[in-house]
């Protein structure tokens, strides 16, 4: 039994979903995504028992490209993040009805397939292929099922596509260059390369372009807010919950170990870019009038901090970043779901038009409040563990980074609570607000349970990821 099974389940699931027709599509998709989740938990057990669950086979002989899926702790953690969020995302969409649902759900599963592949691939080209493949489904999901004016949406989505493709093509050039040096795309071979400082700098920058656009870091973030707003909520969840983690994960897996010298030399620059994202995202979020846009900018602030954590090149920084990636993945999906729940009832996302929901639906209010507090890293939530570890690692580099980065918590608390106040509290809204449905409730509760469980007891995840992070750190600090 190995991890290729999950890829097969998701791929077959995508095809089956497409062919069962519009009525059954959502249920079949949910079934396959749950199967993938179950399968990954079983694989986690195998892994914990010390069995190898990686998959290796030859694909193309000349040039040498192998089909290698390497499941170490880090890969499995990201795999679990994807397979756990996918059913939640699919389930949460049960409240909406989409035209041509079979295509919609098939694309979601296909995207999960591509993202799982990205997290597991240990051959540069295979990784690149999965990376690019994940772009196609989200493009169509945002384009066809998105909301708002068609013309504006088209512009936003095409901009997003061209932006990300541009970044990743430079990454492809870097990979091809590495191939001419190493004679293979295998991750392990690339780790052993001895590149000169100049070569490392160019390769580092090529990777950086791809990842900075995907994450997104300042100043490559301009596609983000409009796409988050225009995409259907499911698309936004996939983008913010999982897809941008591909960029953060790739920094740890590919960029830093292959080209560590520039990261050490210009550490302050890259940490500074991350921190700048924190400040910028928080300040812009303060001024937002649209709920989804506010969440988009808050997401920009949080991922900026995660990226800063990865560039510290310390054990705490890396493990804190990974923890925060997972925590942010869950909380942001929960927040977008809450925004969608409000939109389903009121058909608006303008914060000014909302208010007084608390009196009509206390259950929803308390769940939303927990998510808001988790997002601002209240102690005992998972986000606290991640954010605190990252801030600690930043303080080891330079105390001011931690101080400025810490404003994400303060500013975050300010704009998130202000938003909560405007949306949920205040005078009773005249429009009726139906209580959360079962599918919405289950999705929210599942997310909250994860956030609390790992907030109080993060050890399973740290135990899972730290051995593989140690290996990566050893490669980073090999000189």
């Amino acid at each position: 039994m190995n991890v290729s099974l999950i890829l097969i389940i998701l791929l077959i699931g995508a095809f089956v979903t497409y062919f069962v027709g519009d009525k059954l599509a959502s249920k079949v998709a949910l079934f396959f995504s749950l199967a993938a989740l179950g399968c990954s938990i079983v694989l986690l057990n195998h892994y914990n028992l010390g069995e190898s669950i990686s998959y290796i086979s030859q694909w193309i002989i000349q040039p040498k490209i192998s089909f290698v899926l390497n499941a170490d702790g880090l890969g499995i953690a990201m795999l679990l993040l994807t397979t756990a969020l996918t059913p939640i995302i699919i389930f949460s969409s049960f409240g909406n009805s989409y035209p041509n649902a079979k295509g919609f759900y098939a694309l979601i599963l296909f995207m999960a397939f591509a993202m799982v592949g990205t997290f597991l691939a240990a051959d540069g080209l295979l990784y690149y292929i999965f990376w690019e493949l994940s772009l196609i489904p989200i493009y169509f999901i945002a384009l066809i099922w998105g909301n708002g004016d068609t013309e504006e949406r088209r512009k936003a989505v095409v901009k997003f596509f061209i932006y990300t493709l541009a970044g990743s093509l430079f990454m492809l050039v870097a990979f091809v260059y590495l191939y001419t040096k190493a004679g293979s795309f295998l991750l392990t071979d690339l780790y052993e390369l001895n590149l000169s400082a100049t070569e490392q700098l160019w390769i580092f920058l090529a990777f950086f372009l791809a990842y900075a656009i995907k994450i997104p870091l300042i100043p490559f973030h301009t596609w983000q807010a409009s796409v988050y707003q225009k995409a259907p909520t499911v698309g936004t969840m996939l983008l913010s919950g999982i897809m941008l983690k591909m960029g953060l994960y790739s920094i740890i897996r590919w960029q830093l170990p292959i080209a560590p010298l520039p990261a050490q030399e210009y550490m302050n620059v890259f940490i500074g870019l991350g921190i700048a994202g924190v400040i910028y995202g928080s300040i812009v979020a303060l001024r937002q009038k649209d709920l989804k846009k506010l969440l988009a900018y808050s997401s920009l602030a949080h991922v900026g901090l995660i990226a800063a954590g990865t560039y510290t090149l310390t054990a705490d920084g890396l493990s804190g970043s990974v923890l925060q990636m997972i925590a942010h993945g869950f909380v942001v999906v929960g927040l977008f779901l809450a925004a969608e729940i409000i939109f389903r009832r009121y058909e608006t996302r303008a914060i000014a038009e909302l208010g007084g929901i608390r009196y009509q639906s206390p259950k929803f209010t308390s769940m939303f409040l927990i998510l808001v507090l988790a997002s601002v890293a209240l102690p005992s939530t998972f986000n606290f563990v991640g954010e605190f570890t990252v801030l600690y690692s930043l303080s080891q580099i330079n105390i001011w980074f931690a101080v400025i980065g810490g404003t994400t918590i303060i500013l975050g608390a300010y704009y998130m609570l202000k938003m909560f106040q405007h949306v949920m509290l205040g005078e009773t809204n005249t429009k009726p607000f139906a209580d959360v449905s079962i599918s919405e409730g289950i999705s929210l509760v599942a997310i909250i349970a994860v956030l609390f469980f790992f907030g109080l007891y993060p050890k399973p995840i740290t135990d899972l990821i730290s051995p593989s992070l140690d290996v990566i750190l050893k490669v980073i600090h090999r000189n």
Partner: protein
Amino acid sequence: MNTLIAIIGLGVFCLLFEILNLRKAIIPVTIIGLLGVLAINYSEFGLTESYYNNMIAVSKYSTAFSSLFIVLTIFLVALSYNFYEDHQTKISDYIAIKIFLLAGAVAMVSFGNLAMFFLGIEVLSIALYVLAASDRTKIKSNEAGMKYFLMGSFASGIILFGICLIYGAMGSFDVIEISDLSQSAELPIWFPIGIVLLTVGMLFKVAAVPFHFWAPDVYEGSPALTTALMSTLAKVVAIATLYKLLTILNAELSESYVIVIVIVSMLSMTVGNIMALRQVNVKRMLAYSGISHAGFMLMTLLTLATSAGTLLYYTTAYALAGIAAFSVILYVCKNQDNEDITNFHGLGKTNPLLAAILTASLLSMAGIPIFAGFFAKLFLFNQAIQAGYIALVIVAVVNSIISVGYYFKLILAMYTKEPNEARTGRPFLIYAVAVVSILLNIIIGLFPSLILDLLN
């Protein structure tokens, strides 16, 4: 050799169909005949022989490319059925011309003598002139034929001049003798000039910048099926021939020649792509996209010794995607008087399968993974970086990004606009060609070694 004879026999046979009044059977019989030719060609694969005083030299290179030409012709003949529905009386002429064109194409990659090469290029070109002007009643088609003829014969003249200069320098038309003599230290100045003239003439046929001006007008004016032929088969033939010419005539390219190729390649990509961004006519857009692809293919000329396999792979990927795209265009624009993007509005709703196929073929041309176009670009970049042309690769990458802009314009039109008319009819052959060619594209994308290892 047997391949060439069989193709010409098939062409004559097609003409006889008209006399025997068997027009209805012509397409199936021709396809079966071409499959037979493919089998003959396959049996010759791996042989290296020359015939008739080295007039024709069969090699791995020539058989591999001939197979590609034959497969493309099969697709084009299959598409003819619906396209010439209203011209039943002339169908055997059109089919026969396509077969003769194939004979010219095969001669162009298997020549052993420059005279044979010139014969091949003329057979191919004259067939193309006729096909370009074949829609007699339309003024645009007449214009396309005339333009193509004038410019094409001019290019043929330049090629002929180049051949003459090479003969003057070397005293022979035979490529083996010429390449032996070209190793000597003292080369007459006429020889490099002749090579340059040959290259210029072939660059015209490939439609590389700055010899591209005919392409958009001719592509737009010609009947859609002829455009399909020009942008897939004719382009592939021309670049394969140019590659072969340079390989067997002078193995060592001089430095200034390399610089010229690099500049022409960069210019072709950039001009082609930037012009394509502004087009509203799909045929014209694909003409410019073809110009930029020609720029990519020219990159193989920089690493002549090693990149035959890459060229074969790139041309196969490009041509298969082109055939798939054009079969959808033929379907959509069947009863329209132009091929504007507006005709494609809402195809995603009215005809999801064809819309998906067109999307896939455009993604392949743009170089998005899993489609063969991605691997084609990857192998190309790999070769170029290994040879040290990093600047060229960067330009190529930037161009790949630009190209997404116009390929996606078409995809957006299919999926985000409302359909403006109902499309009826499910012509079997068009569907079959579209599905088979895109499947072949994906298969060679998943298993690139199938094609790549043929010539390595």
